[in-house]
Every structure is written in structure tokens, then in C-alpha cells.
């Protein structure tokens, strides 16, 4: 399969005072195929949002993408693009839906004006055509009465409608890849489901790939074809969704599943992962999960584990399968 997005050895460095550099994203490999939904799952601070920003070369200064990182979008080397070519990638090839619908819309412009702006950022259209296109996009994002909502200001819309407006904006450039960074975190559970279903329908009708970034395994379960689990700046496990949920390969993934409340078993107390997420300033040596791992081996603290292909599209960065002990 030819991959739409192929990220190799992505490292993002932030210089610290004193000349040291930390790497919140440290060697990420990620592939997304055409029309595929991939979920990137991880805790806060694991580097998943930074990874998504890097795909658009929008890493906030003073951070920067390190030499040797490769980002290929449909064969184009995103790392080598100049400013204008980069602008054509942003919005046109890769659309982005942001996390917080409350602050991601400009409060002083009408929703219609903002969708229309995204339309005309990449295509020259007559004013009437641009407006018609913007209303069509609002309709496609399943906003009721799109022509009426065109003249609404963001504060006049509910959170769910605002998130739909953000989706309409992200669709305006007709991107091949839609990045949705925690698209439902700010929404009620019922609205969450509607927005996720909308994204899935749009993916199907437009043949668009979706990179879904979330901390919620439940969200990943229903929609994604594949799931990549991220921990401490690295992808620790990658597998087709069904396989990940039935046979998680990495102790971190297994620990995550144990800490999800279940309806079918009566436990007093949820399992938790001991310790806290390490900071990028002090990633543990060896396997980065070893201080919190319940299945830790002697060599885990000293040696960096390899990425082991476990077959069926599943791979894990762990010594257990490498040593044949699981």
C-alpha cells in the first residue's frame, strides 16, 4: 500500500537554558494510508499534539524539528518546502480540526466569513461562489440551516455547532488528510458521538484519511482502523484496532486497559499505573516505561528495547516479545 503520510524518525527539540536540548518527540514513526483512520493515543504530555503540529511544520518556537526527521506527504518532502509551498500544504493538503471550539474561532468574524476565508485561501472564486461554497460546507458539516447560520457570530452558537463550523473550515481546502486533535474533548458525551460519526461519514464520502489524536481509548476503539499508542515521545505500540484491543502487545497498553472501568466485573478499586508521566527533561534511560512497568525485566533499565514486529500489522517497542517471554 502506498502511504499518504509517512513520518520517519521525527524528533522535535526544545533548547533549554544552559545549552541543553530536550526532545518531547523523540523518534516517532507513523504511517497513514489513503482513506484510513489512524488514532494516535497517549496521555497528556506524551508529545502527540506536538507531533501533529510538526506535520504542518508549526512547532512553536523555540522548538524545532531536528535534522534527520522525514515527513513525506504523498511523496512530497514536507521538510524541504519553502514558505509558499508550505502554505499550500496547510489547509489544502492537510486540514486541521482544533481541540477547543470556544477559542479556535475568531470572535469578531461571522462563522460564514471564516469558512469563506478558508475557501478563498486556496482558490480564486467570485464572491458569490465563495459564499455558496461556504454555505455548502456548513451543510456538509451538518449544521442545521446553514444559510441562516452563515451570518451568526461564534458566541451565538453552541459548542457542538462551533466544532462543526471548525470541521467545515478544515474541509474547505478539500484536504487528503484531516488531523483532528482531541476534537471532542470540550464537548458533552452525546455531542462527542455525533461529531465523531460526522468525521467518519466525511472520511467515507470524501475518501479522506483521518489522523485522530486523542487520550481516550474509547474514542479510538469505535472509529480507527489502526491505533498507535504514544508514551514519552515515542510510539510504543502500533496495531490494527481490533487486535490492539484483544491482544495488546506492550505492557503500557495492557496497563491502560486495566485502568478502564468495566461494566462486567465488580472491582472495588480501579487498577492504576504507579508513578507519573516522566517529563521530557528527564526521560528514563533504557525503556522509557520501565520505572512504571509491572512486567519489568533486568535489561529494561539499561538497554533501549527494539521495535518488534509481532505479525498481523502489530508491533511493540518492548523487550518481552523480543525475548520471547509473553
Amino acid at each position: 500500500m502506498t502511504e499518504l503520510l509517512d513520518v520517519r524518525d521525527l524528533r522535535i527539540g526544545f533548547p533549554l537554558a544552559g545549552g541543553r536540548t530536550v526532545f518531547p518527540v523523540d523518534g516517532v514513526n507513523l504511517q497513514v494510508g489513503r482513506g484510513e483512520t489512524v488514532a494516535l493515543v497517549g496521555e497528556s504530555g506524551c508529545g502527540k499534539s506536538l507531533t501533529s503540529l510538526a506535520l504542518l511544520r508549526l512547532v512553536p518556537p523555540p522548538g524545532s524539528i531536528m535534522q534527520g526527521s522525514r515527513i513525506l506527504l504523498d511523496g512530497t518532502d514536507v521538510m524541504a518546502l519553502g514558505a509558499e509551498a508550505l502554505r499550500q500544504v496547510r489547509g489544502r493538503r492537510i486540514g486541521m480540526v482544533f481541540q477547543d471550539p470556544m477559542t479556535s474561532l475568531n470572535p469578531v468574524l461571522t462563522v460564514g466569513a471564516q469558512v469563506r476565508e478558508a475557501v478563498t485561501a486556496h482558490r480564486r472564486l467570485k464572491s458569490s461562489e465563495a459564499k455558496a461554497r461556504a454555505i455548502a460546507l456548513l451543510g456538509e458539516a451538518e449544521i442545521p440551516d446553514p444559510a441562516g447560520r452563515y451570518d451568526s457570530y461564534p458566541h451565538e452558537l453552541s459548542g457542538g455547532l462551533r466544532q462543526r463550523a471548525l470541521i467545515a473550515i478544515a474541509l474547505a481546502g478539500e484536504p487528503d488528510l484531516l488531523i483532528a486533535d482531541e476534537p471532542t474533548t470540550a464537548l458533552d458525551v452525546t455531542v462527542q458521538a455525533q461529531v465523531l460519526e460526522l468525521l467518519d461519514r466525511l472520511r467515507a464520502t470524501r475518501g479522506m484519511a483521518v489522523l485522530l489524536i486523542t487520550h481516550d481509548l474509547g474514542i479510538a476503539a469505535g472509529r480507527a482502523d489502526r491505533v498507535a499508542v504514544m508514551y514519552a515521545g515515542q510510539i510504543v505500540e502500533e496495531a490494527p484496532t481490533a487486535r490492539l484491543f484483544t491482544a495488546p502487545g506492550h505492557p503500557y497498553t495492557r496497563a491502560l486497559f486495566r485502568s478502564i472501568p468495566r461494566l462486567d466485573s465488580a472491582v472495588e478499586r480501579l487498577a492504576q499505573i504507579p508513578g507519573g508521566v516522566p517529563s521530557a527533561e528527564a526521560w528514563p534511560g533504557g525503556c522509557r516505561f520501565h520505572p512504571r512497568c509491572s512486567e519489568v525485566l533486568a535489561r529494561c533499565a539499561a538497554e533501549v528495547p527494539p521495535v518488534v514486529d509481532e505479525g498481523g500489522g502489530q508491533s511493540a517497542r518492548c523487550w518481552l516479545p523480543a525475548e520471547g517471554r509473553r
Partner: protein
Amino acid sequence: MIGSLRDLLRRAWRHPSGRWGTLTLIVLAVLVLVGPSRLPDPFVMPDVLAGATAPTLAHPFGTDQLNRDILSRVVSGGRVSLAIALLAVVVSLGVGATVGLVAGYTGGWVDALLMRLVDGALAIPRLFVLLLLLVVWERIPLWALVLALGTTGWFGTSRLVRGEVLRLRAEPFVQAATALGASASRTIARHLFPNAAGPALVAATLGVGEVILLEAGLSFLGLGVQPPTPSWGGMVLDARPLIVSAPWTAIFPGAAIVLTVLAVNLVGDALQAALDPRSA
């Protein structure tokens, strides 16, 4: 979070001082615009021998030492004073907003250079610069006076706009615009400027009062608007020797200055209060 400019104006109007200030300004503007055509000619041939006469029905504000009608001079002087103030503030708002947007958006050495220049300019008293210019340039034309007042009044505005831009650049919607391929000029024009316009507008409103007072002060010193063109400051200057024997010659133009500056400041206060989310 501040909504649209329209919201801001609506909230300012609900504020009592905003309403009173606006109404006063509207009345003043109407008087100044239609007044001169219905009043005696302020340039009428002076009658030096008649001298200053106290207010009568024919001359409700009295006449000055050259027997010119003070009401009509206050009204046409208002035209000059208000026009100068308005234009000067438009100039300083334009320059200040542009410099602030460029400095805030570009950042780096451009920002540092522009802001150090502003720091330097702020250290020199405005009145001193104006006095120097006006002493060197005798009988200064009105347009040059407007430019001089405008180009010495934008430093604070540029600081304010730059600060707003720095805050806005970190807002998700500005980052979202970049992520969706908006160019720099579009980001500035559509996202940064409209959101920074509120505070700049407040500063500009308060600047109007300042410029009216400055112009009055300069004219009072004989350096601003040149006679026979009437201006409020100039009229107070002319009234100086008569202030005891014919006080109406100073009271009415002085009251016009006070009333205008008060009204403008009331509007500015109301806008400021409307901008503050805690008061909304």
C-alpha cells in the same frame, strides 16, 4: 472575551456616561456643522471703536474686543478645533496601529527596534517637540498642524496595539488560521486587527481630548491656528487682557473646550468600561 466591535459600542451606549458623552458630542457636531451658515459672519469687518459688548439678544455670547460675535466665533472655531482633533487622531491611530501590528506580528529585531524608537520618542515631551516645530515654522498651515499633532501622538497607541497582537498571536484561532494556510497579510487584516481595534479605539477617543487641549494650548501661546481663523485656544488668548472687564470673551470659548473634552472623555471611559470583561 470581547465580542464584535458592534457589541463593544452597544455596551458603551448602555453606560450612562457613554450615552451622555455621545449625545453631547452629537449636539456639538451638529452645531458646528450647520451653525456657521445661520449665524453672523465671524470674519465681519471689525468695529474696533464699539469694543467688547456684554451678551444681548442680538449677541447671546456677547462680542469680543473687535466687536465680533462670540457665538459665531465659538461655533466656527469649533469647526477648526474639532476637525484638527479628529484628523490628528486619525493620523496617530493609523500610524500607531500599523507600527503596533508590524512590531507585534513580526517580532524579533524589527519589534525590538521599533519599540526602542518608541521608548526614545516617549522620553521627549510632546509639547516640546511641537513648540520647537511651530517656532521654526511660522504661520503654519492647518494641514501641517494636523500632521504635527498626529505624528507626535501615536507612540502609546503602537505600544497598546503591539501588546494586543502579542496576546492574540497565542490565541488558538490565530494559530488555526495559520494551520489552514492563511497568509501573513490575511492573518493581520482579518484576525489580528479587528480584535485589537477595541483598545485602540479607546485610546484614540481619549486622544481626541488631549489633542483639543494641546491645540488650544498652542493657539493660546500664539503658535497654533493663526488669526483671523478662529479657534478656541486662540479666542482665550485674545480674551486675556479683557478677562476682568469683559469675562464673557474668555468664558464661552473656555466652556466649549471644557464641554468637548469632558464629553470625549466620558465616551472614552464608557468604551473602556465596556472593554473590561469584568464590568460586562
